[in-house]
Protein backbone atom coordinates (compact mmCIF):
# COMPACT_ATOMS: atom_id res chain seq x y z
CA UNK A 1 0.00 0.00 0.00
CA UNK A 2 1.42 3.35 -0.97
CA UNK A 3 1.25 6.48 1.11
CA UNK A 4 -1.79 7.78 -0.74
CA UNK A 5 -3.48 4.49 -0.14
CA UNK A 6 -2.63 4.57 3.52
CA UNK A 7 -3.92 8.10 3.83
CA UNK A 8 -7.20 7.32 2.20
CA UNK A 9 -7.44 4.20 4.29
CA UNK A 10 -7.03 6.37 7.34
CA UNK A 11 -9.75 8.73 6.19
CA UNK A 12 -12.00 5.78 5.56
CA UNK A 13 -11.22 4.37 8.97
CA UNK A 14 -11.72 7.65 10.78
CA UNK A 15 -15.02 8.41 9.05
CA UNK A 16 -16.39 5.05 10.03
CA UNK A 17 -15.17 5.56 13.57
CA UNK A 18 -17.09 8.84 13.73
CA UNK A 19 -20.28 7.11 12.68
CA UNK A 20 -19.82 4.45 15.30
CA UNK A 21 -18.93 7.04 17.89
CA UNK A 22 -22.30 8.69 17.45
CA UNK A 23 -24.02 5.35 17.88
CA UNK A 24 -21.98 4.57 20.97
CA UNK A 25 -22.97 7.93 22.45
CA UNK A 26 -26.61 7.19 21.71
CA UNK A 27 -26.31 3.81 23.32
CA UNK A 28 -24.62 5.37 26.31
CA UNK A 29 -27.72 7.40 26.99
CA UNK A 30 -29.79 4.25 26.94
CA UNK A 31 -27.55 1.76 28.64
CA UNK A 32 -24.85 3.74 30.39
CA UNK A 33 -27.19 6.29 31.84
CA UNK A 34 -30.61 4.63 32.02
CA UNK A 35 -29.83 0.95 32.12
CA UNK A 36 -31.95 0.12 29.10
CA UNK A 37 -30.51 -2.82 27.25
CA UNK A 38 -31.21 -2.02 23.63
CA UNK A 39 -29.84 -4.78 21.45
CA UNK A 40 -31.76 -3.43 18.54
CA UNK A 41 -29.32 -0.66 17.76
CA UNK A 42 -29.09 -1.89 14.19
CA UNK A 43 -32.80 -1.32 13.69
CA UNK A 44 -32.63 2.40 14.35
CA UNK A 45 -29.38 2.64 12.47
CA UNK A 46 -31.09 1.04 9.48
CA UNK A 47 -34.17 3.18 9.66
CA UNK A 48 -32.07 6.32 9.76
CA UNK A 49 -29.98 5.17 6.85
CA UNK A 50 -32.96 4.27 4.69
CA UNK A 51 -34.82 7.43 5.53
CA UNK A 52 -31.94 9.61 4.54
CA UNK A 53 -31.22 7.52 1.46
CA UNK A 54 -34.79 7.67 0.22
CA UNK A 55 -34.98 11.39 0.79
CA UNK A 56 -31.76 12.25 -0.99
CA UNK A 57 -31.31 9.83 -3.90
CA UNK A 58 -32.33 10.84 -7.40
CA UNK A 59 -35.87 9.92 -8.44
CA UNK A 60 -36.31 6.29 -9.41
CA UNK A 61 -39.21 3.95 -10.09
CA UNK A 62 -37.49 1.14 -8.24
CA UNK A 63 -38.19 2.11 -4.69
CA UNK A 64 -40.03 4.69 -2.68
CA UNK A 65 -39.08 8.22 -3.38
CA UNK A 66 -35.78 9.22 -4.64
CA UNK A 67 -36.69 12.77 -3.66
CA UNK A 68 -33.27 14.22 -4.42
CA UNK A 69 -33.38 16.47 -1.36
CA UNK A 70 -30.20 17.93 0.14
CA UNK A 71 -28.19 15.72 2.45
CA UNK A 72 -28.92 17.88 5.47
CA UNK A 73 -32.65 17.37 4.96
CA UNK A 74 -32.05 13.66 4.71
CA UNK A 75 -30.19 13.62 8.00
CA UNK A 76 -32.89 15.62 9.76
CA UNK A 77 -35.39 13.17 8.34
CA UNK A 78 -33.31 10.30 9.69
CA UNK A 79 -33.41 11.78 13.17
CA UNK A 80 -37.14 12.42 13.03
CA UNK A 81 -38.17 9.06 11.64
CA UNK A 82 -35.93 7.00 13.90
CA UNK A 83 -37.07 9.14 16.82
CA UNK A 84 -40.71 8.53 15.99
CA UNK A 85 -40.07 4.84 15.62
CA UNK A 86 -38.41 4.90 19.01
CA UNK A 87 -41.48 6.55 20.51
CA UNK A 88 -43.61 3.79 19.07
CA UNK A 89 -41.36 0.94 20.13
CA UNK A 90 -40.59 2.63 23.41
CA UNK A 91 -44.24 2.95 24.34
CA UNK A 92 -44.67 -0.79 24.15
CA UNK A 93 -41.33 -1.87 25.53
CA UNK A 94 -39.77 0.60 27.96
CA UNK A 95 -41.53 -0.96 30.87
CA UNK A 96 -40.19 -4.41 30.24
CA UNK A 97 -37.57 -5.85 32.54
CA UNK A 98 -34.18 -4.96 31.19
CA UNK A 99 -33.22 -8.40 29.93
CA UNK A 100 -36.57 -8.82 28.26
CA UNK A 101 -36.18 -5.41 26.73
CA UNK A 102 -32.91 -6.72 25.32
CA UNK A 103 -34.52 -9.62 23.58
CA UNK A 104 -37.55 -7.62 22.49
CA UNK A 105 -35.39 -4.97 20.90
CA UNK A 106 -33.23 -7.40 19.00
CA UNK A 107 -36.40 -9.05 17.78
CA UNK A 108 -37.81 -5.74 16.64
CA UNK A 109 -34.56 -4.85 14.91
CA UNK A 110 -34.68 -8.12 13.05
CA UNK A 111 -38.27 -7.46 12.03
CA UNK A 112 -37.16 -4.11 10.70
CA UNK A 113 -34.45 -5.85 8.74
CA UNK A 114 -36.94 -8.34 7.34
CA UNK A 115 -39.22 -5.51 6.33
CA UNK A 116 -36.38 -3.74 4.59
CA UNK A 117 -35.48 -6.96 2.86
CA UNK A 118 -38.95 -7.79 1.70
CA UNK A 119 -40.83 -4.56 1.19
CA UNK A 120 -39.18 -3.95 -2.12
CA UNK A 121 -41.46 -1.15 -3.31
CA UNK A 122 -40.16 0.92 -0.42
CA UNK A 123 -36.58 -0.15 0.11
CA UNK A 124 -35.63 -2.03 -3.03
CA UNK A 125 -35.18 -5.14 -0.91
CA UNK A 126 -31.89 -6.99 -0.90
CA UNK A 127 -30.79 -5.01 -3.91
CA UNK A 128 -30.33 -2.02 -1.70
CA UNK A 129 -30.26 1.64 -2.53
CA UNK A 130 -27.33 2.92 -4.50
CA UNK A 131 -26.18 6.36 -5.62
CA UNK A 132 -26.73 8.01 -2.27
CA UNK A 133 -25.13 11.44 -2.48
CA UNK A 134 -22.21 12.47 -0.34
CA UNK A 135 -22.28 15.73 1.55
CA UNK A 136 -20.63 18.66 -0.27
CA UNK A 137 -18.19 16.74 -2.49
CA UNK A 138 -19.44 13.76 -4.46
CA UNK A 139 -16.30 11.97 -5.57
CA UNK A 140 -12.63 12.30 -6.21
CA UNK A 141 -9.77 12.62 -3.79
CA UNK A 142 -11.41 15.39 -1.72
CA UNK A 143 -14.65 13.53 -1.06
CA UNK A 144 -13.21 11.44 1.73
CA UNK A 145 -11.51 14.18 3.74
CA UNK A 146 -14.49 16.50 3.40
CA UNK A 147 -16.77 13.82 4.72
CA UNK A 148 -14.44 13.22 7.60
CA UNK A 149 -14.57 16.87 8.61
CA UNK A 150 -18.36 16.82 8.48
CA UNK A 151 -18.45 13.65 10.53
CA UNK A 152 -16.08 15.04 13.13
CA UNK A 153 -18.28 18.08 13.56
CA UNK A 154 -21.27 15.81 14.03
CA UNK A 155 -19.43 13.81 16.69
CA UNK A 156 -18.51 16.99 18.52
CA UNK A 157 -22.12 18.14 18.57
CA UNK A 158 -23.39 14.75 19.65
CA UNK A 159 -20.79 14.60 22.39
CA UNK A 160 -21.78 18.00 23.68
CA UNK A 161 -25.47 17.11 23.77
CA UNK A 162 -24.97 13.78 25.46
CA UNK A 163 -22.42 14.96 27.98
CA UNK A 164 -24.54 17.92 28.97
CA UNK A 165 -27.49 15.61 29.36
CA UNK A 166 -25.43 13.34 31.56
CA UNK A 167 -24.32 15.95 34.06
CA UNK A 168 -27.68 17.66 34.20
CA UNK A 169 -30.47 16.83 36.64
CA UNK A 170 -32.08 15.01 33.73
CA UNK A 171 -29.18 12.59 33.73
CA UNK A 172 -29.46 12.26 37.47
CA UNK A 173 -33.06 11.14 37.19
CA UNK A 174 -32.01 8.56 34.62
CA UNK A 175 -29.35 7.17 36.91
CA UNK A 176 -31.91 7.03 39.68
CA UNK A 177 -34.25 5.04 37.47
CA UNK A 178 -31.43 2.68 36.65
CA UNK A 179 -30.84 2.12 40.34
CA UNK A 180 -34.33 1.82 41.66
CA UNK A 181 -37.42 2.44 39.70
CA UNK A 182 -39.98 2.36 42.50
CA UNK A 183 -38.04 4.82 44.58
CA UNK A 184 -37.79 7.16 41.61
CA UNK A 185 -41.52 7.04 41.25
CA UNK A 186 -41.89 7.72 44.92
CA UNK A 187 -39.68 10.75 44.42
CA UNK A 188 -42.26 12.15 42.05
CA UNK A 189 -40.54 11.49 38.78
CA UNK A 190 -42.49 10.30 35.81
CA UNK A 191 -40.36 7.27 35.18
CA UNK A 192 -42.05 6.24 31.97
CA UNK A 193 -41.59 9.65 30.46
CA UNK A 194 -37.91 9.87 31.37
CA UNK A 195 -37.19 6.41 30.08
CA UNK A 196 -38.98 7.14 26.91
CA UNK A 197 -37.04 10.35 26.48
CA UNK A 198 -33.76 8.53 26.94
CA UNK A 199 -34.80 5.79 24.59
CA UNK A 200 -35.89 8.25 21.95
CA UNK A 201 -32.87 10.54 22.18
CA UNK A 202 -30.51 7.57 22.06
CA UNK A 203 -32.34 6.00 19.16
CA UNK A 204 -32.50 9.27 17.27
CA UNK A 205 -28.73 9.52 17.54
CA UNK A 206 -28.44 6.00 16.17
CA UNK A 207 -30.74 6.99 13.33
CA UNK A 208 -28.58 10.00 12.67
CA UNK A 209 -25.52 7.78 12.55
CA UNK A 210 -27.38 5.59 10.08
CA UNK A 211 -28.01 8.60 7.88
CA UNK A 212 -24.35 9.53 7.99
CA UNK A 213 -23.43 5.99 7.09
CA UNK A 214 -25.68 6.04 4.05
CA UNK A 215 -24.07 9.24 2.82
CA UNK A 216 -20.63 7.99 3.61
CA UNK A 217 -20.92 4.67 1.92
CA UNK A 218 -23.20 5.66 -0.92
CA UNK A 219 -24.94 2.31 -0.90
CA UNK A 220 -27.05 0.52 1.67
CA UNK A 221 -28.64 -2.90 1.73
CA UNK A 222 -30.11 -4.98 4.52
CA UNK A 223 -26.81 -6.72 5.17
CA UNK A 224 -25.21 -3.60 6.50
CA UNK A 225 -27.62 -3.75 9.40
CA UNK A 226 -26.99 -7.24 10.64
CA UNK A 227 -26.66 -7.54 14.39
CA UNK A 228 -22.89 -8.00 14.21
CA UNK A 229 -22.13 -4.72 12.46
CA UNK A 230 -25.06 -2.74 13.67
CA UNK A 231 -25.37 -3.75 17.28
CA UNK A 232 -22.69 -5.98 18.63
CA UNK A 233 -19.78 -3.82 17.66
CA UNK A 234 -21.41 -0.76 19.20
CA UNK A 235 -21.97 -2.57 22.45
CA UNK A 236 -18.40 -3.78 22.39
CA UNK A 237 -17.26 -0.21 21.93
CA UNK A 238 -19.29 1.08 24.82
CA UNK A 239 -18.32 -1.67 27.18
CA UNK A 240 -14.66 -1.61 26.29
CA UNK A 241 -14.57 2.14 26.66
CA UNK A 242 -16.54 2.23 29.85
CA UNK A 243 -20.28 2.58 29.92
CA UNK A 244 -21.74 5.61 31.59
CA UNK A 245 -18.71 7.58 30.52
CA UNK A 246 -18.96 9.54 27.30
CA UNK A 247 -15.25 9.91 26.88
CA UNK A 248 -15.09 6.20 27.39
CA UNK A 249 -17.64 5.70 24.64
CA UNK A 250 -15.42 7.66 22.25
CA UNK A 251 -12.26 5.93 23.36
CA UNK A 252 -13.91 2.52 23.14
CA UNK A 253 -15.08 3.32 19.63
CA UNK A 254 -11.58 4.08 18.50
CA UNK A 255 -10.08 1.03 20.20
CA UNK A 256 -12.59 -1.49 18.95
CA UNK A 257 -12.60 0.00 15.50
CA UNK A 258 -8.81 -0.13 15.47
CA UNK A 259 -8.95 -3.81 16.23
CA UNK A 260 -11.69 -4.45 13.74
CA UNK A 261 -9.88 -2.60 10.97
CA UNK A 262 -6.50 -3.84 12.10
CA UNK A 263 -7.60 -7.38 11.58
CA UNK A 264 -8.82 -6.35 8.18
CA UNK A 265 -5.39 -5.07 7.22
CA UNK A 266 -4.00 -8.32 8.48
CA UNK A 267 -6.34 -10.36 6.32
CA UNK A 268 -5.60 -8.22 3.29
CA UNK A 269 -1.99 -9.27 3.59
CA UNK A 270 -2.92 -12.92 3.28
CA UNK A 271 -3.01 -14.54 -0.15
CA UNK A 272 -6.41 -14.28 -1.77
CA UNK A 273 -7.13 -17.96 -1.93
CA UNK A 274 -7.13 -17.92 1.83
CA UNK A 275 -9.94 -15.40 1.83
CA UNK A 276 -12.40 -17.85 3.31
CA UNK A 277 -10.22 -18.70 6.25
CA UNK A 278 -9.02 -15.15 6.58
CA UNK A 279 -12.42 -13.62 7.16
CA UNK A 280 -13.26 -16.28 9.70
CA UNK A 281 -9.91 -15.81 11.39
CA UNK A 282 -10.58 -12.12 11.56
CA UNK A 283 -13.86 -12.54 13.35
CA UNK A 284 -12.26 -15.08 15.64
CA UNK A 285 -9.55 -12.63 16.55
CA UNK A 286 -12.06 -9.91 17.32
CA UNK A 287 -14.00 -12.25 19.54
CA UNK A 288 -10.89 -13.26 21.43
CA UNK A 289 -9.66 -9.70 21.83
CA UNK A 290 -13.02 -8.66 23.17
CA UNK A 291 -12.92 -11.41 25.77
CA UNK A 292 -9.46 -10.34 26.82
CA UNK A 293 -10.54 -6.74 27.27
CA UNK A 294 -13.62 -7.78 29.19
CA UNK A 295 -11.61 -10.04 31.44
CA UNK A 296 -8.84 -7.61 32.15
CA UNK A 297 -10.81 -4.38 32.35
CA UNK A 298 -14.21 -5.12 33.77
CA UNK A 299 -15.28 -1.52 34.09
CA UNK A 300 -14.01 -0.62 30.68
CA UNK A 301 -10.96 1.47 30.04
CA UNK A 302 -12.59 4.52 31.59
CA UNK A 303 -14.96 3.73 34.45
CA UNK A 304 -18.19 5.59 34.95
CA UNK A 305 -17.50 9.08 36.09
CA UNK A 306 -19.66 10.64 38.71
CA UNK A 307 -20.73 14.19 37.94
CA UNK A 308 -18.50 16.56 39.82
CA UNK A 309 -19.78 17.78 43.17
CA UNK A 310 -21.38 21.18 43.03
CA UNK A 311 -18.83 23.86 43.93
CA UNK A 312 -20.32 26.12 46.53
CA UNK A 313 -19.53 29.55 47.90
CA UNK A 314 -18.56 28.77 51.49
CA UNK A 315 -17.71 25.11 52.03
Amino acid at each position, binding site marked *: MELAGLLSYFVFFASFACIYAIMALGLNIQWGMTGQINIGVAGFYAVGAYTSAILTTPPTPEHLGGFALPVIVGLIGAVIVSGLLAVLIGMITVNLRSDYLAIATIGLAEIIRFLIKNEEQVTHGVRGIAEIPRPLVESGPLAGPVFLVVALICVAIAYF*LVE*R*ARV*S*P*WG*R*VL*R*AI*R*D*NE*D*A*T*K*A*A*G*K*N*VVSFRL*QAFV*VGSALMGFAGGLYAHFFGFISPEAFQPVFGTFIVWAMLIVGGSGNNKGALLGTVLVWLVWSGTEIFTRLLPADMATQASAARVLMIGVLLQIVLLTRRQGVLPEE*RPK*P*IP*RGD*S
Partner: protein
Amino acid sequence: MIVVENVSKAFGGLKAVHDCSLEVADGSITGLIGPNGAGKSTLFGIIAGFIRPDSGRILLDGRDITGVKPHRLFHLGLIRTFQIPHEFSRMTVRENLMLVPAAQKGESLVTSWLRWGAVWQQEVEIADKADEVLDFLQLAHLADELAGRLSGGQKKLLDIGRAMMTDAKVVLLDEPGAGVNRTLLAQIVETIRRLNRERGYTFCLIEHDMDMIAELCDPVICMAQGTVLAKGTMEEIRANEAVREAYLGHTEPA
Protein backbone atom coordinates in the same frame (compact mmCIF):
# COMPACT_ATOMS: atom_id res chain seq x y z
CA MET B 1 -56.40 14.80 55.09
CA ILE B 2 -56.40 11.18 53.92
CA VAL B 3 -59.61 9.24 53.92
CA VAL B 4 -59.67 5.56 53.05
CA GLU B 5 -63.14 4.37 52.17
CA ASN B 6 -63.99 0.68 52.03
CA VAL B 7 -60.82 -0.27 50.24
CA SER B 8 -60.26 -3.90 49.33
CA LYS B 9 -57.41 -5.64 47.59
CA ALA B 10 -57.05 -9.34 47.02
CA PHE B 11 -54.00 -11.14 45.68
CA GLY B 12 -55.40 -14.24 44.10
CA GLY B 13 -57.66 -15.67 46.77
CA LEU B 14 -55.88 -13.83 49.56
CA LYS B 15 -57.67 -10.75 50.86
CA ALA B 16 -54.70 -8.63 51.85
CA VAL B 17 -56.86 -5.58 52.50
CA HIS B 18 -60.52 -6.11 53.11
CA ASP B 19 -63.14 -3.41 53.26
CA CYS B 20 -60.84 -1.13 55.15
CA SER B 21 -61.84 2.39 56.11
CA LEU B 22 -59.79 4.85 58.09
CA GLU B 23 -58.75 8.47 58.29
CA VAL B 24 -55.54 10.30 58.84
CA ALA B 25 -56.33 13.69 60.28
CA ASP B 26 -54.63 16.84 59.12
CA GLY B 27 -51.60 17.61 61.22
CA SER B 28 -51.65 14.33 63.10
CA ILE B 29 -49.04 11.66 63.53
CA THR B 30 -51.14 8.59 63.03
CA GLY B 31 -49.69 5.24 63.98
CA LEU B 32 -50.57 2.11 62.05
CA ILE B 33 -49.86 -1.14 63.82
CA GLY B 34 -50.95 -4.70 63.37
CA PRO B 35 -49.66 -8.22 63.06
CA ASN B 36 -47.31 -9.20 60.29
CA GLY B 37 -49.27 -9.65 57.12
CA ALA B 38 -52.18 -7.55 58.33
CA GLY B 39 -52.12 -5.54 55.13
CA LYS B 40 -50.45 -2.39 56.37
CA SER B 41 -47.82 -2.11 53.67
CA THR B 42 -50.35 -3.06 51.07
CA LEU B 43 -52.61 -0.28 52.24
CA PHE B 44 -49.69 2.14 51.98
CA GLY B 45 -49.05 0.89 48.48
CA ILE B 46 -52.66 1.56 47.61
CA ILE B 47 -52.72 5.05 49.10
CA ALA B 48 -49.46 5.99 47.39
CA GLY B 49 -50.67 4.76 44.01
CA PHE B 50 -48.34 1.76 43.64
CA ILE B 51 -51.13 -0.78 43.91
CA ARG B 52 -54.59 -0.43 42.43
CA PRO B 53 -57.34 -1.37 44.84
CA ASP B 54 -60.07 -3.75 43.73
CA SER B 55 -62.71 -1.52 45.22
CA GLY B 56 -63.16 1.48 47.46
CA ARG B 57 -61.57 4.88 47.15
CA ILE B 58 -58.94 7.13 48.61
CA LEU B 59 -59.42 10.83 49.22
CA LEU B 60 -56.65 13.34 49.74
CA ASP B 61 -57.99 16.65 51.02
CA GLY B 62 -61.39 15.64 49.76
CA ARG B 63 -60.10 14.88 46.32
CA ASP B 64 -60.45 11.37 44.92
CA ILE B 65 -56.94 10.05 44.26
CA THR B 66 -57.76 6.39 43.69
CA GLY B 67 -55.53 5.02 41.00
CA VAL B 68 -53.53 8.22 40.54
CA LYS B 69 -49.90 7.48 39.61
CA PRO B 70 -47.25 7.75 42.34
CA HIS B 71 -45.37 10.58 40.70
CA ARG B 72 -48.53 12.65 40.49
CA LEU B 73 -49.31 12.02 44.11
CA PHE B 74 -45.85 13.20 44.95
CA HIS B 75 -46.70 16.52 43.40
CA LEU B 76 -49.87 16.61 45.43
CA GLY B 77 -47.69 16.41 48.52
CA LEU B 78 -48.02 12.71 49.28
CA ILE B 79 -44.77 10.87 49.92
CA ARG B 80 -43.97 7.36 51.05
CA THR B 81 -40.94 5.46 52.25
CA PHE B 82 -40.45 1.74 51.85
CA GLN B 83 -40.31 -0.98 54.43
CA ILE B 84 -37.24 -2.36 52.73
CA PRO B 85 -35.08 0.69 52.01
CA HIS B 86 -35.13 1.80 48.38
CA GLU B 87 -32.01 3.85 48.10
CA PHE B 88 -30.29 4.74 44.83
CA SER B 89 -27.33 2.56 45.53
CA ARG B 90 -25.00 3.76 42.81
CA MET B 91 -25.57 7.42 43.51
CA THR B 92 -23.99 9.35 46.30
CA VAL B 93 -25.90 10.10 49.44
CA ARG B 94 -26.12 13.76 48.45
CA GLU B 95 -27.37 12.90 44.99
CA ASN B 96 -30.01 10.70 46.53
CA LEU B 97 -31.39 13.82 48.14
CA MET B 98 -30.77 16.21 45.27
CA LEU B 99 -32.84 14.06 43.01
CA VAL B 100 -35.98 14.65 44.99
CA PRO B 101 -37.08 18.30 44.63
CA ALA B 102 -39.77 18.73 42.04
CA ALA B 103 -39.78 21.03 39.05
CA GLN B 104 -36.04 21.12 38.55
CA LYS B 105 -35.26 23.14 35.47
CA GLY B 106 -32.52 20.75 34.49
CA GLU B 107 -34.93 17.88 34.25
CA SER B 108 -35.87 19.16 30.85
CA LEU B 109 -33.33 18.14 28.26
CA VAL B 110 -33.83 21.20 26.15
CA THR B 111 -33.32 23.54 29.08
CA SER B 112 -30.17 21.66 30.03
CA TRP B 113 -28.86 22.02 26.52
CA LEU B 114 -29.71 25.64 26.06
CA ARG B 115 -29.90 27.35 29.45
CA TRP B 116 -27.18 25.80 31.51
CA GLY B 117 -26.66 28.87 33.67
CA ALA B 118 -30.12 28.74 35.17
CA VAL B 119 -29.88 24.99 35.67
CA TRP B 120 -26.59 25.32 37.48
CA GLN B 121 -27.81 28.02 39.78
CA GLN B 122 -30.71 25.87 40.85
CA GLU B 123 -28.38 22.93 41.36
CA VAL B 124 -26.35 24.93 43.85
CA GLU B 125 -29.47 25.79 45.81
CA ILE B 126 -30.61 22.20 45.92
CA ALA B 127 -27.19 20.98 46.98
CA ASP B 128 -27.22 23.41 49.87
CA LYS B 129 -30.54 22.15 50.97
CA ALA B 130 -29.40 18.55 50.74
CA ASP B 131 -26.43 19.29 52.94
CA GLU B 132 -28.67 20.84 55.54
CA VAL B 133 -30.76 17.71 55.63
CA LEU B 134 -27.66 15.53 55.88
CA ASP B 135 -26.40 17.58 58.80
CA PHE B 136 -29.73 17.15 60.45
CA LEU B 137 -29.59 13.37 60.03
CA GLN B 138 -25.93 13.13 61.05
CA LEU B 139 -25.02 11.72 57.69
CA ALA B 140 -22.98 14.71 56.55
CA HIS B 141 -19.72 12.76 56.70
CA LEU B 142 -21.15 10.29 54.19
CA ALA B 143 -22.43 12.88 51.73
CA ASP B 144 -20.14 11.71 48.93
CA GLU B 145 -20.35 8.03 49.74
CA LEU B 146 -22.37 5.76 47.48
CA ALA B 147 -25.71 5.12 49.08
CA GLY B 148 -25.36 1.41 48.42
CA ARG B 149 -22.57 1.35 50.95
CA LEU B 150 -24.66 2.65 53.82
CA SER B 151 -25.68 0.30 56.58
CA GLY B 152 -29.27 -0.80 56.89
CA GLY B 153 -30.12 1.84 59.46
CA GLN B 154 -28.39 4.61 57.58
CA LYS B 155 -30.49 3.77 54.56
CA LYS B 156 -33.62 4.24 56.65
CA LEU B 157 -32.41 7.67 57.62
CA LEU B 158 -31.74 8.50 54.04
CA ASP B 159 -35.30 7.55 53.20
CA ILE B 160 -36.57 10.04 55.72
CA GLY B 161 -34.13 12.58 54.39
CA ARG B 162 -35.71 12.27 50.97
CA ALA B 163 -39.06 13.11 52.45
CA MET B 164 -37.48 16.22 53.97
CA MET B 165 -36.31 17.48 50.61
CA THR B 166 -39.78 18.52 49.57
CA ASP B 167 -42.68 20.42 50.93
CA ALA B 168 -44.66 17.34 51.65
CA LYS B 169 -48.06 17.46 53.21
CA VAL B 170 -48.40 13.82 54.11
CA VAL B 171 -45.59 11.39 54.65
CA LEU B 172 -46.23 7.68 54.85
CA LEU B 173 -43.41 5.95 56.72
CA ASP B 174 -43.21 2.16 56.53
CA GLU B 175 -41.36 0.96 59.62
CA PRO B 176 -38.84 3.75 59.93
CA GLY B 177 -37.54 2.18 63.10
CA ALA B 178 -36.90 -1.37 61.98
CA GLY B 179 -33.26 -2.15 62.33
CA VAL B 180 -32.39 1.33 63.48
CA ASN B 181 -30.24 1.67 66.53
CA ARG B 182 -32.38 2.72 69.42
CA THR B 183 -30.30 5.77 70.17
CA LEU B 184 -30.59 6.90 66.59
CA LEU B 185 -34.24 6.06 66.68
CA ALA B 186 -34.73 8.61 69.38
CA GLN B 187 -33.40 11.17 66.91
CA ILE B 188 -35.71 9.98 64.22
CA VAL B 189 -38.60 10.33 66.58
CA GLU B 190 -37.46 13.83 67.34
CA THR B 191 -37.13 14.58 63.66
CA ILE B 192 -40.60 13.40 62.91
CA ARG B 193 -42.02 15.42 65.72
CA ARG B 194 -40.21 18.54 64.61
CA LEU B 195 -41.29 18.15 61.02
CA ASN B 196 -44.80 17.74 62.29
CA ARG B 197 -44.75 20.77 64.54
CA GLU B 198 -42.55 23.16 62.66
CA ARG B 199 -43.43 22.37 59.10
CA GLY B 200 -46.90 21.04 59.58
CA TYR B 201 -46.23 17.65 57.97
CA THR B 202 -48.88 15.05 58.54
CA PHE B 203 -47.46 11.58 59.22
CA CYS B 204 -48.82 8.14 59.03
CA LEU B 205 -46.36 5.54 60.19
CA ILE B 206 -46.26 1.80 60.40
CA GLU B 207 -44.18 0.56 63.27
CA HIS B 208 -43.71 -2.47 65.44
CA ASP B 209 -41.79 -0.61 68.13
CA MET B 210 -44.46 0.19 70.67
CA ASP B 211 -42.27 2.64 72.53
CA MET B 212 -41.94 4.70 69.42
CA ILE B 213 -45.64 4.50 68.68
CA ALA B 214 -46.51 5.42 72.22
CA GLU B 215 -44.21 8.37 72.18
CA LEU B 216 -45.20 9.79 68.84
CA CYS B 217 -48.60 8.76 67.70
CA ASP B 218 -52.06 9.88 68.32
CA PRO B 219 -54.27 8.29 67.23
CA VAL B 220 -53.12 4.71 66.75
CA ILE B 221 -54.92 2.42 64.35
CA CYS B 222 -54.54 -1.30 64.65
CA MET B 223 -55.18 -3.42 61.59
CA ALA B 224 -55.67 -7.15 61.43
CA GLN B 225 -56.55 -9.37 58.53
CA GLY B 226 -56.87 -6.48 56.15
CA THR B 227 -59.23 -4.38 58.12
CA VAL B 228 -59.28 -1.99 61.07
CA LEU B 229 -59.44 -3.76 64.37
CA ALA B 230 -59.26 -0.82 66.73
CA LYS B 231 -58.54 2.85 66.84
CA GLY B 232 -57.72 5.17 69.70
CA THR B 233 -54.92 6.51 71.83
CA MET B 234 -52.08 4.19 72.68
CA GLU B 235 -53.56 3.60 76.10
CA GLU B 236 -56.86 2.60 74.63
CA ILE B 237 -55.18 0.31 72.15
CA ARG B 238 -53.10 -1.34 74.84
CA ALA B 239 -56.19 -1.95 76.84
CA ASN B 240 -57.99 -3.54 73.94
CA GLU B 241 -58.19 -7.28 74.47
CA ALA B 242 -58.49 -8.09 70.76
CA VAL B 243 -55.36 -6.15 70.01
CA ARG B 244 -53.46 -7.84 72.80
CA GLU B 245 -54.59 -11.17 71.49
CA ALA B 246 -53.70 -10.54 67.87
CA TYR B 247 -50.72 -8.34 68.12
CA LEU B 248 -49.12 -7.31 71.36
CA GLY B 249 -49.02 -10.61 73.07
CA HIS B 250 -49.61 -10.95 76.77
CA THR B 251 -46.10 -10.36 77.81
CA GLU B 252 -46.23 -6.76 76.73
CA PRO B 253 -46.25 -4.66 79.86
CA ALA B 254 -49.44 -2.71 80.02
